[in-house]
């Protein structure tokens, strides 16, 4: 995660102590005692520390275990309850050698290693079990919708079987219909499979292909081998910058620090040595964990666990134990299928009974039943929904949201809580100079992504000195060969704070390397944790000045101790009480912002005492390191990305709660939360209120506080009810110092509130939470493969703002899918009614199966996909996220309005055209009634019409087809009206703009007289007018009965 140290931050000092002997802390504690009461959160930090000290430091470990027995069956983390039976940290080197039958000096022999490799397998995490491609493909064809079509197809074939067994010369319509349905399912399946495979491919290109190497001692020789060939008992050497290749027990270490953030979420570097310091293997300093990084120093260690048996391996395997939640859209579509199936079966059964009681034969009635059920199946919708989702997925990919699972497109839109990481997602993931203090004044530096706008006063002599110190007392360097890269993007060798200072000075002063060359370094003491300062001595660039310049930076209190003067406006002044006070105030203020503060001082060494030839000895320090001149303070922070505050505001107005979950210190977390707006400017935590009112935290009425900063320690002691309480009662929550395992608890807590939870994560250990979340979002750049595998979506730019774009797209697609479904469902009535009338009134069939199919899969596909492109109705990001259980994709209003209002109007329009055609050709409506049997009699070749003309069977059939076409045209014309009215759900179509969609949506058909096209036009207009009236009333009288019942 953060990978940087928090060495010098006063507010934060308390917490790193957690992992330090008490003695080392007390000195620091004493130093800051007087300021503690001001910083309430800090008080917390101390409490936390006390807890830890009492609890024997088992906390972190318990955090990992997370076992809450009372939560019973749903708890996915049972496996973690098994104690880690690791006691290697307690053993001596000799015992270890014996246990793993190895030799610390000579290492394993190659043969031994080969044997163990064969026995234990390679040292890699077993990738999550890949679903076989065939099964993935089959799954695509077995989703909610596809099932409906499969059943439809089977029913068709059953009906055909019945017809065929009765009369082999029967029409093959049902056979074809079944085949087409199956074809639709298969083609859509292939399409969806292809879409998802494509995003999987993009993902695959992310995974790092360079195999990791490890330096190992085998056969008494140092060898570099691929890390996956490591076996238990191997002696490995690691150095700063390496990823630790397996779980190792350290045997020797020099200044070794590791970043355990990927395991514990703790972003502070932790020192490592070879002593056994703690009972818990996670706390003790002599164990290094697989996948963590060694930041600095060197160490030698013995491999004690490899592959899946490592701690991280055990966590990663948890992810597979966490069930995948069904996506909201899958649930919605299931709901929709239930509705359609319900309607179909109900109508089918009703008309089956009617048909039987009308003395139709039972077999015929069964065929009618099947026909009605199949007619209700929206054949085109599966394809439309799939295409729509993948179009949106494509659009989102362009905006850096890569969607792995098509259905996740919509999930993002219904998100009501986002649990976001801090580092990298909300912040830029690099230390940056945020504030400077000199001349008794705090200056603010520009922390935006390009640093371009530094406005503080640079004319003071103090700044000249300060800038010299930050330039010279700095070991960080740009990697060569980056001349054309913008400064902020250049790669730097050095730690995070030095990098920040280097870039800062490079931006302001220009070529830092050149300045350093002009001021040659003669001696240097690098930073170490005992001194807590860094010092270097330089020749000056002024050839007339023979003095050496001693520059120093470090923990501000340490630096101040060494100073006797302070520089104000370029002049040295004695350091009196007032200035010390001012220093402390500034230091505390900056620390309170969650920033890491460094102090800077210098001294010109007198030329007579230190001539040009003087030889500086850094071991014996033959030069003064006291009575220096204090110059200033600079504070650094990992600043928020500039787009984030905006995005958070958008989330807020969109009713989405943003919860920050970080492993960082509460103060830093709170400061960042405040600066990005997760904690809004005017809301207070319980601690803030206590501070303001000067009362104890316990006395504060908890309901007064809107915001809460909760640490992992506190979270661990909470019961699920307390967590629920916390999540419902506070609108602004920051979880700090949480272990990634606690993320899972937080996610589950949110889901208990019926929230749709989006979770961001990057580490291996995030994968359970990513999987548990309704939508897991992995980071494309910083994310581990395991996280990307568990996630439904990958943020290609790791930027929180991209999530908000995704939310917008997701909501839009939900709205537009509603429109698409409403559009598609409407004509169902128009297609079904003819069949019902055909059964009931004995009319010649007004529209045939194949023609219906042609509408569903032909002319209507493009318009319904076009609806997916419909732009938002302005208020999309200003309304609350939809309620998972109340705001359904397809609700009763939508169904009734589609089926019983517009659908019925369409059916009537169709019948008017139908009757017109038949009447003009000779069959007036009265003649048509109950004509069905004679009409369909193949031997009847002189059927008389209303004018006494006689028709052969084929002539009648041809007329029937003309009727189909006319009905088809009528539906099409009215579907244009339907398309227009569905463009908006609330606004008038005239407000939305009319002609964006309708182009190219319908194709004409021969076999119909052109005038029939116009018969349905009045009905289309009628539909439009009716719908505009409905929407007008909805807009005029929001919240009324009409709005509730007619808004679909």
């Amino acid at each position: 995660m953060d990978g940087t140290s928090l060495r010098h931050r006063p507010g934060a000092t308390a917490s790193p102590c957690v992992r330090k002997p008490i003695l080392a802390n007390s000195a620091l504690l004493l130093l800051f005692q007087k300021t503690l009461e001001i910083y309430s959160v800090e008080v917390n930090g101390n409490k936390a520390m006390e807890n830890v000290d009492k609890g024997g430091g088992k906390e972190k470990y318990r955090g990992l275990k997370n076992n809450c027995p009372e939560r019973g069956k749903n708890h996915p983390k049972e496996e973690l309850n098994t104690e880690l039976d690791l006691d290697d940290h307690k053993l001596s080197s000799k015992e270890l050698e014996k246990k793993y039958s190895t030799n610390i000096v000579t290492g394993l022999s190659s043969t031994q290693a080969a044997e163990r490799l064969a026995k234990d397998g390679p040292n890699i995490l077993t990738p999550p079990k890949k679903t076989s491609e065939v099964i993935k493909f089959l799954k695509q064809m077995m989703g909610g919708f596809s099932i409906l079509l499969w059943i439809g197809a089977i029913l068709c074939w059953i009906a055909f079987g019945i017809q065929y067994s009765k009369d082999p010369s029967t029409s093959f319509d049902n056979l074809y219909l079944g085949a087409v349905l199956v074809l639709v399912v298969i083609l859509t399946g292939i399409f969806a499979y292809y879409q998802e495979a494509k995003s999987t491919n993009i993902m695959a290109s992310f995974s790092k292909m360079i195999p990791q190497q490890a330096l190992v001692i085998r056969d008494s020789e140092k060898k570099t081998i691929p890390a996956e060939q490591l076996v238990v008992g191997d002696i490995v050497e690691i150095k700063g910058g390496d990823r630790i290749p397996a779980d190792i027990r350290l045997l020797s270490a020099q200044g070794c620090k590791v970043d355990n953030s990927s395991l514990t979420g703790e972003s502070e570097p932790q020192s490592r040595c070879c002593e056994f310091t703690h009972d818990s293997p996670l706390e003790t300093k002599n164990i290094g964990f697989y996948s963590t990084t060694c930041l600095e120093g060197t160490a030698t260690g013995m491999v004690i666990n490899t592959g899946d048996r490592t701690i991280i391996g055990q966590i990663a395997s948890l992810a597979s134990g966490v069930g995948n939640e069904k996506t909201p859209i899958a649930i919605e579509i299931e709901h929709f299928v239930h509705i359609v199936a319900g309607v179909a079966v109900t109508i089918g059964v009703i008309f089956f009974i009617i048909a039987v009681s009308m003395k139709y034969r039972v077999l015929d009635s069964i065929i009618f039943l099947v026909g009605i059920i199949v007619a209700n199946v929206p054949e085109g919708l599966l394809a439309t929904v799939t295409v729509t989702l993948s179009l949106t997925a494509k659009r989102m990919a362009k905006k850096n949201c890569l969607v792995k699972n098509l259905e996740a497109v919509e999930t993002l839109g219904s998100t009501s809580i986002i649990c976001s990481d801090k580092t990298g997602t909300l912040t830029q993931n690099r230390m940056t100079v945020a504030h400077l203090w000199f001349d008794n004044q705090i200056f603010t530096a520009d922390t935006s992504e390009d640093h371009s706008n530094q406005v503080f006063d640079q004319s003071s002599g103090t700044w000249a000195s300060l800038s010299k110190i930050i330039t010279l007392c700095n070991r960080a360097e740009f990697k060569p060969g980056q001349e054309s890269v913008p400064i902020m993007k250049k790669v730097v060798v050095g730690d995070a704070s030095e990098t920040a200072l280097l870039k800062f000075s490079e931006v302001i002063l220009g070529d830092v390397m050149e300045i350093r060359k002009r001021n040659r370094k003669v001696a240097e003491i690098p930073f170490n944790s005992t001194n807590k300062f860094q010092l270097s001595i330089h020749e000056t660039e002024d050839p007339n000045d023979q003095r050496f310049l001693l520059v120093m930076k470090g923990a501000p209190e340490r630096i101040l101790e060494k100073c006797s003067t302070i520089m104000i406006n370029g002049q040295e002044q004695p350091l009196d009480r007032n200035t010390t006070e001012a220093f402390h105030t500034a230091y505390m203020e900056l620390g309170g912002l969650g920033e890491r503060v460094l102090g800077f001082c210098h001294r010109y060494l007198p030329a007579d005492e230190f001539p040009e030839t003087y030889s500086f000895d850094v071991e014996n320090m033959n030069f003064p390191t006291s009575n220096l001149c204090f110059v200033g303070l600079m504070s650094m922070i990992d600043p928020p990305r500039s787009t984030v505050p905006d995005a958070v505001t958008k989330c807020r107005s969109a009713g989405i709660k943003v919860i920050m979950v970080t492993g960082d210190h509460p103060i830093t977390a709170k400061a960042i939360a405040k600066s990005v707006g997760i904690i809004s400017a005017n809301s207070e935590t319980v601690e803030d209120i206590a501070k303001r009112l000067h009362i104890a935290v316990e006395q504060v009425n908890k309901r007064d506080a809107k915001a809460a900063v909760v640490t992992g320690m506190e979270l661990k002691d909470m019961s699920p009810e307390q967590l629920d309480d916390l999540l419902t009662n506070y609108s602004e929550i920051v979880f700090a110092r949480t272990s990634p395992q606690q993320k899972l608890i937080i996610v589950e807590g949110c889901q208990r509130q019926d929230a749709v939870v989006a979770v961001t994560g990057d580490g291996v250990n995030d994968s359970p939470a990513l999987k548990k979340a309704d939508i897991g979002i992995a980071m494309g750049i910083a994310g581990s493969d395991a996280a990307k595998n568990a996630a439904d979506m990958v943020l290609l730019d790791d930027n929180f703002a991209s999530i908000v774009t995704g939310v917008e797209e997701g909501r839009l697609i939900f709205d537009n899918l509603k429109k698409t479904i409403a559009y598609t469902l409407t004509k169902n009535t128009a297609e079904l009614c003819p069949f019902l009338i055909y059964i009931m009134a004995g009319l010649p069939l007004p529209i045939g199966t194949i023609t219906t199919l042609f509408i569903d899969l032909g002319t209507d596909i493009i318009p319904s996909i076009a609806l997916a492109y419909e732009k938002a109705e302005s208020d999309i990001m200003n309304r609350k996220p939809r309620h998972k259980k109340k705001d359904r994709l397809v609700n009763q209003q939508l169904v009734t309005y589609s089926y019983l209002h517009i659908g019925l109007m369409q059916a009537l329009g169709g019948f008017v055209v139908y009757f017109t055609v038949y009447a003009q050709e000779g069959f007036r409506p009265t003649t048509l009634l109950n004509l069905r049997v004679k009409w369909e009699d193949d031997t009847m070749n002189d059927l008389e019409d209303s004018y006494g003309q006689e028709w052969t069977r084929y002539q009648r059939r041809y007329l029937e087809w003309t009727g189909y076409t006319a009905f088809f045209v009528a539906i099409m014309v009215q579907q244009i009206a339907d398309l227009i009215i569905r463009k908006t759900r609330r606004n008038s179509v005239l407000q939305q703009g009319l002609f964006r969609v309708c182009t190219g949506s319908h194709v004409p058909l021969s076999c119909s007289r052109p005038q029939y096209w116009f018969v349905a036009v009045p009905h289309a207009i009628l539909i439009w007018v009716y719908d505009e009236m409905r929407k007008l009333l909805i807009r005029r009288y929001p919240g009324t009965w009409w709005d509730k019942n007619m808004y679909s």
Partner: protein
Amino acid sequence: DDQDEVNQNYLADEEEEAEEEAQAVSEYLWDPEKRMSLARTGQSWSLILVLYFFFYASLAAVITLCMYTLFLTISPYLPTFTERVKPPGVMIRPFAHSLNFNFNVSEPDTWQHYVISLNGFLQGYNDSLQEEMNVDCPPGQYFIQDGDEDEDKKACQFKRSFLKNCSGLEDPTFGYSTGQPCILLKMNRIVGFRPELGDPVTVSCKVQRGDENNIRSIKYYPESASFDLRYYPYYGKLTHVNYTSPLVAMHFTDVVKNQAVPVQCQLKGKGIINDVINDRFVGRVIFTLNIET
């Protein structure tokens, strides 16, 4: 054991869920607390019923209006278009939902129904009836009656006696008793249809498949084997009330016995189409004769 406990918990939960669901359903049907049924209060229900009543009432009004307009634009006397019913189809009598004439001369039961069918069909052609109802118009020319379309039109006589041996007057069995069956051929009525260029449409029959000599002779009545021009044009059922479709009787006087003989009778004439593949009744009719002795 833990697993068992988990399972039991799970089962217990499921039971609870089922109970809750039943509760929810019954509450959905009737919620006594809020006095709601199907999630609607009485007021909401009445509003929705009123809404649908008015909505459907207006829809009914709309469709009534549409149908009324439709009837206004369509003449009850003449169809608007006649292309779909042209060219004329052909049908034969006797007709018993089958085009296979299968009978045994010596067993009257096998052909009696043909005779009954023909007799019934020819009742309307009885000479006395025709003379009473219809006029004897000049043959060889169209019987054109100008005047308004709603004026009653006169119809030309087609007397049963025109059919001679097939009229059933001399031979009440229409030849079936002697194995020389009569089959009447009727051209479908089409309003306004007139054979082109003043040439009457004629009928000719032959063996459709197989040995042409299976039918050694056919007699046609009227002898011209044609539909006289005076029966055209037809003015529609409403005004041309007594219109009598002209017939051509085919008397199969010498057909091979004890063998199915497929016969095709075609109309011939200008503007007559008799070879449409999809429609086997336009301008032609195919049937089989299987006369057993």
